[in-house]
């Protein structure tokens, strides 16, 4: 599935992550900015990718600016951004 509109969720405050989703046509492309990219870059990208796949989104450009978010926060922000991009309002319980 591809997304309809660009959307974002999250903030740039400490312990949060800002996820921006934009239309893409070449799989899930993640551009990550993080102070802990060496230690946790792969893990952050993994959480974003799995969450998007569970929502059946397979073509999207992701801009993520991480400020030290835990996995649960990354997942929550990804879901919120994805639902805004897909213009759905019902919670995706199976992903949560």
């Amino acid at each position: 599935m591809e997304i309809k509109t660009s959307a974002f969720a999250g903030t740039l405050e400490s312990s949060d992550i800002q996820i921006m989703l934009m239309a893409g046509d070449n799989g899930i492309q993640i551009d990550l900015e993080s102070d802990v990219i060496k230690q946790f870059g792969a893990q952050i990208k993994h959480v974003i990718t799995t969450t998007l796949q569970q929502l059946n989104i397979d073509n999207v450009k992701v801009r993520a600016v991480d400020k030290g978010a835990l996995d649960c926060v990354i997942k929550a922000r990804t879901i919120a951004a994805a639902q805004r991009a897909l213009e759905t309002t019902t919670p995706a319980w199976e992903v949560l």
Partner: protein
Amino acid sequence: MTAQVVEMQLNNPHDRTQWQHFLTSLGITNFSAREVDQIDTTLGLIEDDQLVGTGSIAGNVLKYVGVCNLNSRPGARFNQIVSALVSRLFQAHIFHMMVFTKAKYSLSFQHVGFKELAHSDEAAVLENGSPDIADFVRQLPSITNQDDQRVSAIVMNANPFTCGHRYLVEQAAAVSDLVYVFVVATDASLFRTAERVKLVQQGTADLPNVQVVSGGDYLVSAATFPAYFLDSAASAIEAQTTLDARIFKTQLAPALHITTRFVGSEPTSRTTAIYNQVLQRELPPTVSVQVVPRTEVADQPISARTVRQWIQSGNLTKLNQLVPPTTAQFIKNNLSVLQSRIQEGMKINGN
């Protein structure tokens, strides 16, 4: 305690005084009406009843961003105010944003997801979101083996398209395999952007190797080069055109294999004359700059400004000497609309 984001009303004297006083304390002192009037939204960061940060939005451009880091973790307030601004833009369905800032703040913006397009010793221009400059390049038309071909570029406002513009395009087309004509995208001229693009397309339709495209946010746009549209100090023009030239040199020219930029010589407009000088200083050797002397009619250089003055006066008898038939036809068909735009305050003596 965390700071609260509030909306500030700059037309409210209390908010305005507080805002201006705060920014002045941070060394931001340009509060000229033409800068401040463009602001759509201003946010403030309040902690213990004190203003500790602010930022504004004008179109898709962030402006007047400043924070005080006293009694706070460095960066926290900056991140909070930029978050709030980005969030506002997204809510307004503006997904591509730019910021024009002092070079020393470029890294702070890069830390919150902005990408630097170009910088000079004093200033930097950054963007965030989509479509970005890579998307802009991708949607442009291209030819096969473009990297081996002679590719040229011209940037014009074409307000409106004249025989002088036509001559410049012909000169470029004669020695190139592909000519990109980038038409200024900012809608701040007598002729609307769509009209200017259409007249350039019609006026060059017989030249098969010419592609007329929009300059987007990257070539002489209100974001990167506001002085083009507003009468400004020479130092401001110099600073902005340097960034404009560097975006062209480091981002667009390599991606599109552009090796020559054609410009018309500029005997009358001060802004454009400075721009031409800066291009000649910045672009070589990566991109060579060809200055084509202006075409003259009766010893006068052809100028779109003259055409606009004739539109104002309604005296179109010599119009065909200055503009191609397509432009002349458009002006005759839309004379009253154009004149009413001038009466409503559209300036015709700038660019």
